[in-house]
């Protein structure tokens, strides 16, 4: 099998999407931690357009954008499929992956706010997004993929683990058992899946990292916390 490398960063949920997919399929790979404040020639060569992680390099060929990478992994290594067989169900799974990329970023907008109108707006957007997940995405299933996790669960990983950190730092609670019962249960169930449980950034370390990142960001806007 040709060599597989993953260029990523430890705090990034997008990096983890790829790690989870590779590990679920049992694909050996070399992980390369990137320093985004001092981007490596390798990253600039493999992702000249966006200069972002994650980048998967397979047999020397780079694939960028985590959603594209997930589909690539599924296409090349069909074992332990992340997508269902049925074309309609596949379309539904892809719909939610796209939703994750287009709508979930509102939680990161929330992350970058302090108290005020902007925060209220970001909170409202985030709640609407979570409501869509609860009522239309997950409904009464255990996972987005049904009985076991699939590509959509992987795509929503940030809601299971990183959102809790955002809630802690911003001082808001979005997912509660009485407001989003299925989603609340899902965050627990998702993190209990062995491959996921064994491959998550340590919560305390993550909190420290993102607290500093948030402080620095707000400082550049003249806002204190």
């Amino acid at each position, binding site marked *: 099998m040709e060599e597989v490398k993953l260029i990523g960063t430890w705090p990034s949920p997008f990096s983890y999407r790829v790690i989870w997919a590779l590990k679920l399929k049992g694909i050996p790979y070399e992980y390369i931690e990137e320093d985004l404040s001092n981007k490596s020639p390798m990253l600039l060569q493999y992702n000249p357009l966006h200069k972002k992680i994650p980048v998967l390099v397979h047999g020397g060929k780079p694939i960028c954008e985590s959603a594209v990478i997930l589909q690539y992994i599924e*296409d090349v290594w069909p074992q332990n499929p992340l997508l269902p067989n049925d*074309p309609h169900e596949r*379309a539904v799974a892809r*719909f939610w992956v796209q939703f994750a990329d287009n709508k979930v970023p509102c939680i990161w907008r929330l992350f970058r706010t302090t108290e005020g109108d902007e925060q209220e707006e970001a909170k409202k957007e985030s709640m609407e997004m979570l409501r869509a997940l609860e009522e239309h995405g997950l409904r009464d299933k255990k996972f987005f993929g049904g009985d076991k996790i699939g590509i959509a669960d992987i795509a929503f990983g940030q809601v299971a683990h990183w959102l809790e950190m955002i809630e802690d730092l911003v001082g808001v609670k979005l997912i509660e058992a009485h407001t989003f019962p299925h989603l609340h249960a899902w965050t627990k169930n998702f993190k209990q899946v062995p491959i996921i449980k064994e491959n998550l950034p340590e919560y305390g370390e993550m909190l420290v990292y993102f607290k500093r990142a948030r402080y620095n960001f707000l400082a550049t806007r003249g806002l204190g916390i």
Partner: protein
Amino acid sequence: MGEENKVTLYGMWASPFVRRVKIALKIKGIPYEYVEEDLRNKSQFLLQYNPVHKKVPVLVHNGNPIAESLIILEYINETWKHGRKILPEDPFERAKVRFWADFLQQQFLDSLCSATKSREEAHEKAMKDVFKKLTVFEEGTEGFFPNGSPHFEGENLGFLDIVLCSLFGSHKVGEEALTMKIIDPERHPLVHSWVTAMNELPVVKETLPPRDKMVAFIQSLRGNSLD
């Protein structure tokens, strides 16, 4: 048409996203029923079939709804296996077209929308960004045509061709409506020849919205957002 294999497309006449689906259905020779939606007064069907976004296009196949144009193209590719494949078979080639389609759909379209909705200085700045992104696309896809200029035998359009065509197929109309040149053969020769080659194909011509109606529509969009 019986219920077996019934295909319905919910759309809006001016939408480039709907046009993508029409082109794909035509290329594959899939018969379908078209339903025009009034987006200011959305039908119960649309709200039921796309409750999350409430947008067109939505393809309904045997009662199952599929939303989001790029996802619909993938669905068509996987469901109707006869004829030309819309996506390449090779996973790496597939990843490349998905990457560039995503670039056009997210980054490029954002810039084009900003340019349409702004004027004077903001508009100039937005247009510079549009051209910059077109250049990125031009350079990034150079390797797709090793034999020289884009050339399409029959109606063999693929995923990325369809996305590009839907965004720029009416570019002369857009240019007339906005009185600005978007695709300049000097600045972006590949994109220009690519779009021109596609615009010759019957399947593309047949799905083009009526010109005058389109010019008026784009002008009103711009007018509304500038007020």
